[in-house]
């Protein structure tokens, strides 16, 4: 069926709730309203108020409650309305969700999936354009997943919900309705912890995820026209990271560019660049470049386009790398 990413997410939720009656969805406005992006549309009517719960406006309680639900055998899928509002729940995530398995030596676990829309590019209000995925990648025990297409979104979300580890599932708002794709009706899952080489190339590797994947594609096509063959690795699971796929690609191409819309310093690009430097130094024909947002707060809508990388900026970096 042809659908957008947000529809694919909706189908993944419905599909998993049908397959497994332990799966419950909750959060602010996910019930009767169907979520502010309509990601949970129809679930309330279909599964009822005990499996699709509108909660009071309190992110820490929502995530904390998810832990307790998991203890009693549910598979909770809380929604945080925007990534900018996940910080009130940060203590529950870092101090409990991430380490419950470890601190009880496996007696208790937190098989929950925290979904949240993230990233800039839809001219939303202040605090609605955050992309602080790196914060979560630094916390042992968490799995951080970002889809870049409707097909991946459905399969990766299903896999996240089925996973016995806690997952932070980040949904790029800019891609929610950007593109339609044929997505199977039946439930399916895609492997976590596996990056995908979504475009093959010889001269240079771009590592990207989420809303930067289309930017990478555009840049790759433009570069191709200029005679530079670009390979794209879509990370898909940001943590634990599939370093092997990145390294294999860079060992082949000899040049690497990491593309993300988060600020540069201590962004995930740093980890990727460090990894490449550690394990593929001798393959490098040029320094690993990071094309990222600058180290500033996301500007309000009028200027957000100055913030996240665009094709132009990527192409400039590609040229630099090729000329090094």
């Amino acid at each position, binding site marked *: 069926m042809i659908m957008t990413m947000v529809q694919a997410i909706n189908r993944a939720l419905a599909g998993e709730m049908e397959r497994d009656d332990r799966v419950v969805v909750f959060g602010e406005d996910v019930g009767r309203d169907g979520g502010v992006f309509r990601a949970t549309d129809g679930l309330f009517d279909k599964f009822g108020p005990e499996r699709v719960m509108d909660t009071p406006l309190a992110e820490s309680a929502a995530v904390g409650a998810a832990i307790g639900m998991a203890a009693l055998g549910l598979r909770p899928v809380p929604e945080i309305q925007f990534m*900018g509002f996940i910080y009130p729940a940060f203590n529950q995530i870092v101090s409990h969700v991430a380490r419950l398995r470890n601190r009880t030596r496996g007696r208790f676990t937190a098989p929950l999936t925290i979904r949240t829309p993230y990233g800039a590019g839809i*001219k939303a209000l202040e605090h609605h354009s955050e992309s602080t995925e790196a914060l979560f990648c630094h916390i042992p025990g968490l799995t951080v997943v970002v889809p870049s297409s409707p097909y991946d979104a459905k399969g990766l979300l299903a896999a996240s919900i089925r996973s016995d580890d806690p997952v932070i599932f980040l949904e790029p708002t800019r891609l929610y309705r950007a593109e339609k794709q044929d997505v199977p009706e039946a439930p399916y899952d895609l492997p976590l912890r596996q990056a995908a080489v979504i475009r093959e190339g010889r001269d240079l590797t771009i590592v990207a995820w989420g809303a930067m994947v289309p930017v990478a594609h555009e840049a790759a096509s433009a570069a191709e026209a200029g005679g530079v063959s670009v390979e794209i690795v879509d990370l898909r699971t940001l943590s634990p990271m599939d370093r092997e796929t990145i390294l294999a690609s860079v060992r082949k191409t000899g040049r690497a560019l990491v593309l993300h819309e988060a600020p540069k310093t201590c962004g995930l690009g740093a980890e990727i660049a460090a990894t490449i430097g550690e394990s593929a130094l001798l393959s490098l024909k040029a320094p690993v470049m990071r094309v990222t947002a600058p180290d500033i707060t996301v500007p309000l809508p009028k200027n957000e386009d100055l913030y996240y990388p665009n094709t132009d900026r990527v192409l400039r970096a590609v040229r630099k790398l090729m000329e090094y």
Partner: protein
Amino acid sequence: MIERFDPLKGERLRVLDEDGQAVPGLDPNLSDDLLRTLYERMVQTRAADAKALKLQRQGRLGTYAPSVGHEASQVGLASAMSRDDWFFPYFRDLGTFLTLGYPLADYYHFWMGNEAGLRTPDGLNIFPISIPVASQIPQAVGAGIAAKSRKLGIAVVTTFGDGATSEGDFHEGLNFAGVFRTPNVFVCINNQFAISVPRSRQSAAATLAQKAIAYGFPGVQVDGNDVLAVFAATWEALAVARSGGGPTLIEAYTYRMGDHTTSDDAARYRTKEEVQQWERRDPLARFRLYLGRKGLWDEAYEKEVQAAASDLVEKSVAEAEARPPASVDDIFAYTYAEAPPDLNAQRDELKASLPEGRR
């Protein structure tokens, strides 16, 4: 007066009944000038709000949270404040901003998507609009602590919605205020919804005002569509605060007449009948009746007021739209007091990647 209305007994302070008749003994007997000012501010608020919605539909303003229905609460509370008091707003506070003298052009400028609109003019004690729900509350309490320890003799007001009362920051802030006995006035704009979630699912407490009991200070529920009730309660709470009597929680019981924001469709979660019921309690209409009884309102006056409001609105839109867009320098300049060299390099690199006109 506040003490006479016990939220645990379901009592609500109301000065004007639905016909605009003042309850004997409760009318604060404001001067004619002030009464007219209250009305004019409410009219301005409604006009400015309607304009923002129009601009949004035309793509000239971003996602917007309308204030329609909240005029009595916003104008009532702000009119009770004095110029030295501080205000910590939330994101639905148009009438409060206007009444406190915040330029409407700046307010629009912010909602048009430019940080410059959040730069409060010097001399006004208004903190920036806060989007993360309830996070402004502890900040207001910190201001209250400072006001008290510096013996400024001022009060600090903060507003927030019914949904905000569920957040940890609401609780932590009010609890601090009780312990430090700060000069804070907390005004909860209970408009019955947090986006789609109705008040009854936000808390099992019968009123939000009674939450003050948890913090050891008074709470009162007032009719938020009655500008005199909101004014009177805030006035009293401010006086108590300034004189060292500690904080008060005011629940302004009202209704969000519009959608949550321009991205929302309230028809998905509430009935037309409910909305119509509240339309009959329109805060402007009610106050107009009161003014009429006092001989302070007639059609000619109404026309004048509407024209002035429309004037203000059009001028403010023009002013906001005439402002230059933020430059690259601008979006980098305020990250630190002095930018580190790396950040300047990032700025210059970004500029180099941009076409001339956009730098």
